């Protein structure tokens, strides 16, 4: 299949998955009704009675749509940043948390939970400490000018370890009856607390971040040939690397703002995308975005529907991700 064709197919699959996810829930809504409600929102042809329309609109637009949008954004953002980091660090085993963004965001959010009762403070903490952790990794990496990639990885390990320890401190100090369970539950990741205000605030920057990365994806091929080769092709390696790290960090920390820490997506999905469309980042990135979005959407459907109580989605993505990843690696070795 031609790559452009593949992207269209993946896009259609995502749309269908989103439509089906909209219809699934405690109160099932048929796809026909969904389309009718959507039709009513754009024109005012009365095709169903006012009361039913208001109920459906409340369920679909106010409750399910924000959550589905969040799942799509998170899945796409984590997968794209994972693919970017894997190419840039010339290592297929790298994930978006490499430079400490997830550890930093976890710490920031838990501090927010302790110092304030406001959800906004938690989100602000997650976002800002995600950035701070990556800045710390960059600062540590600048100690030595030799082998920038290796120094960045070391910086990320140090920064990640630092914020993980600080997170332990926060957990230790937290009130064990209310705050600690809240922190732990939040660290497992989940979309049950998502609201339309957050999604509306975050979706702009996430989409811009993803689109910018897609626009720059041609450079990732060159960067993954090694620094000096890239520079000999006239590419400003230092600037582009910082730009890629900046964009990937922004969108990764915004996923934490929306749904806590959701692991394995950013590692697993780029591999699946690579198996489908090959390693060329110009096609790999959009494919990873679409597959990641679909994957997280399905995972979230399972998380909210499988049992009468909701399963944290982070648990689900790692439990599914680990065996799946082993399978992918085995196939990749064969190919």
């Amino acid at each position, binding site marked *: 299949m031609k790559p452009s064709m593949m992207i269209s197919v993946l896009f259609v699959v995502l749309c269908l998955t989103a439509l089906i996810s909209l219809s699934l829930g405690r109160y099932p809504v048929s796809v026909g009704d969904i389309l009718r409600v959507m039709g009513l929102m754009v024109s005012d042809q009365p095709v169903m009675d006012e009361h039913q329309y208001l109920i459906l609109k409340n369920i679909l637009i106010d409750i399910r749509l924000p959550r589905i949008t969040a799942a799509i954004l998170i899945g796409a953002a984590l997968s794209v940043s994972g693919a970017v980091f894997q190419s840039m660090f010339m290592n297929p085993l790298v994930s978006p948390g490499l430079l400490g963004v997830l550890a930093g965001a976890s710490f920031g959010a838990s501090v927010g939970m302790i110092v304030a009762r406001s959800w906004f403070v938690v989100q602000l903490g997650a976002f800002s400490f995600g950035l701070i952790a990556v800045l710390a990794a960059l600062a540590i990496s600048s100690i030595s000018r030799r082998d920038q990639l290796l120094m960045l990885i070391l910086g990320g390990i140090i920064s990640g370890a630092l914020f993980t320890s600080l997170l332990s401190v926060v957990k230790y100090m937290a009130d064990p009856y209310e705050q600690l369970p809240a922190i732990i539950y939040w660290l497992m990741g989940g979309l049950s607390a998502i609201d339309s205000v957050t999604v509306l605030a975050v979706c702009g920057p996430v989409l811009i971040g993803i689109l910018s990365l897609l626009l720059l994806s041609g450079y990732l091929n060159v960067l993954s040939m090694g620094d000096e080769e890239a520079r000999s092709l*006239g590419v400003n390696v230092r600037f582009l690397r910082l730009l890629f790290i900046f964009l990937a960090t922004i969108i990764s920390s915004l996923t934490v703002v929306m749904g806590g820490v959701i692991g394995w997506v950013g590692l697993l999905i780029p591999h699946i995308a690579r198996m489908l469309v090959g390693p060329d980042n110009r096609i790999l990135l959009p494919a990873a975005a679409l597959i990641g979005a679909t994957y997280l959407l399905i995972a979230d459907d399972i998380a909210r529907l499988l049992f009468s109580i909701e399963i944290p989605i982070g648990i689900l993505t790692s439990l599914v991700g680990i065996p799946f990843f082993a399978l992918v690696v085995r196939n990749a070795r064969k190919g």
Partner: protein
Amino acid sequence: MKLMTLISVDHVTYGYSRKPVLKDISLTFKRGEIVSLLGPNGSGKTTFLKLLLGLYRPQEGRVLFEGRSVSEIPPKQIARRIAYVPQFHRLAFGYRVMDVVLMGRIPHKPFFFQYSNDDQKAALDALERLSIDHLKDRPYTEVSGGERQMTLIARAIVQGADVFIMDEPVNGLDYGNQIRLLYRITDLARNGYTFIKTTHFPDHALWFSDRVVMLKAGKVIADGDALQMINRINLYNLYNTHIKVIELDDGAHICIPDGLRGQDNHCVPNDSFKVHELGA
């Protein structure tokens, strides 16, 4: 063709002040030349190539390309004239040969870019010119070492470069591919391309180069016509090994280490060889 100065290296020193990698090097390169850099491991050959490319900045002295200092020319402009063909490397991702060649168009593109049909055509033309167009959809990681070097040369052509800087181009290739690659280089040089390459094979320099530069411990110890410079004394100075250069009946030259015993086609190092090996 009139040979004119293309690159001049003017009293260049590079490296830490106490133990510089390159010491006060002055050289000039002319259009259409094939220059081989010979030197033992760690003599500064690769560093020298990277200075020519503007990847490293000399601590002292300057590298001039057509009279302009390479550290002052914008990288994209350099890339349109000087191409780097790096040593055999392993890649984590198997991009298609075509995609690797397309990278050569980047110096001609704006910051946000998409490859146009013209870019695709240029890449295909280069692949055809080197008769490897049948490889265009194969993963770069799965073609042979010789084909990879050809891919990188195709990329250099697509860059529009007329100076090719190659780091041990035959490294890792089988003998047939080594010779084929060198013939290809000679062919391109006849069409006006300039090649500056490092090599560990004095034979290759004898057969396929116009000129050799011998580097030892960061200094140029010989520079000139390949046939004149590759001789017993220079080779001994360079490698600390006794090597004789023999002229064959048809006028070609080859290098042969001393101490090879003919009768049983068996290599037995003689005493002098051993002594100098230990002394090295």
